[in-house]
């Protein structure tokens, strides 16, 4: 067969070979028994093998040692139901270079019907850069979330949580988590939630705040709201936001005074 051997080719065969050679991905053509039938130039570059090192060998030589034992099983299942699909959906795949190093790979499989039976073409792409980029993005998102929800121990047994910017559910959840962890670690008695940096309080933001307060109360810490500006106070009442037992102060200074008093009340025996 022309695909497999360098026999004289017809026009279609030549076109196929050229397409294979100029493809941006490394492409391996593999037989049903797992032997490599053909590779393109990209494969040589990506894996560091020459064509002659690869053709006729078990394709498992390109699979990292720890996945090698199970790979023939996966390969067998592909040939039972050969159709075009990405390999290992949802998994992080790795491929093994000649020098023993690995790279994260994205692999798509397609069946190739020939006179000699079904072959599979595997297109392999090195996704090192993309995966690093994703990890960096995730790390930065985490860092931004951390930065945006700092918990400060402002006094003995008093924590302050300056909330700056808009409070969405993700941030609110992170904020609650961070605050409760800090309560547990510092055994704080009072928490000051300072909302002077929150542009506007709507019912949703108020709900998030009240959930945080409830959770802190369950752990045994009292909460004080601070930084309520006149317009915020008006808006909250107009919206019918009910704060329940939560005490509120205009400035952080007043809130801190109240917090210190609460600490004294709670720790002094009657």
């Amino acid at each position: 067969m022309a695909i497999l051997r360098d026999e004289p080719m017809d026009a279609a065969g030549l076109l196929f070979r050229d397409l294979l050679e100029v493809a941006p991905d490394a492409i391996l053509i593999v037989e049903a028994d797992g032997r490599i039938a053909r590779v393109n130039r990209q494969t040589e570059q990506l894996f560091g093998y020459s064509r002659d090192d690869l053709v006729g060998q078990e394709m498992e030589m390109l699979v990292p040692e720890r996945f090698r034992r199970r790979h023939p099983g996966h390969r067998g299942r592909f040939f039972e139901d050969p159709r075009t699909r990405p390999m290992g959906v949802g998994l992080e795949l790795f491929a093994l270079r000649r020098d023993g190093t690995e790279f994260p790979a994205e692999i798509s499989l397609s069946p190739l019907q020939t006179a000699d039976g079904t072959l599979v073409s595997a297109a392999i792409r090195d996704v090192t850069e993309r995966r690093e980029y994703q990890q960096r993005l995730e790390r930065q998102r985490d860092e931004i979330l951390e930065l945006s929800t700092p918990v400060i121990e402002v006094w003995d047994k008093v924590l302050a949580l300056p909330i700056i910017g808009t409070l969405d559910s993700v941030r609110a959840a992170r904020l609650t988590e961070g605050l409760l962890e800090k309560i547990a670690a510092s055994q704080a008695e009072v928490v000051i939630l300072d909302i002077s940096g929150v542009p506007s309080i709507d019912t949703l933001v108020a709900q998030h705040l009240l959930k945080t307060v409830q959770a802190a109360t369950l752990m045994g810490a009292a909460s004080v709201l601070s930084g309520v500006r006149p317009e915020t106070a008006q808006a909250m009442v107009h919206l019918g936001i009910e704060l329940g037992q939560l005490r509120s102060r205009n400035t952080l200074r007043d809130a801190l005074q109240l917090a210190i008093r609460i600490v004294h009340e709670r720790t002094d025996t009657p």
Partner: protein
Amino acid sequence: MSEAIPVLRIGDTLLLSLQGDLDDSSVVRIESRITDEVARTHAKGALIDVSGLIVVDTFIARAIARIVGMVRLLGAEVVVVGIQPAVAITLVELGVPMGQLDTALNAEQGLVLLRKLRAGGGHGDRAG
């Protein structure tokens, strides 16, 4: 929580520690043990330490609320201590009504709160 349910006595206060996995039968045993102890010792206060509970669902939350109600009926004040961050978040997210619950961070602060509750003549009027 299979066999022994440890209830420690400190003066006229009892300390009940909930640990591990609670199921229907263990909750029933705890209820009977703590109510018997409160009545037998004439305890005036009880601390329920839940720091040993890793997972708290609505079933366990209701069980805790029931135990609190029973002990109060026997004339003792109750403070729940050691609610862990994840547990607190779960309770709030589940919307379990725990508003009547008096809570403290740890047993030491729980004892202080118990004294205040007894001096103030009842729960629901805690400082803070």
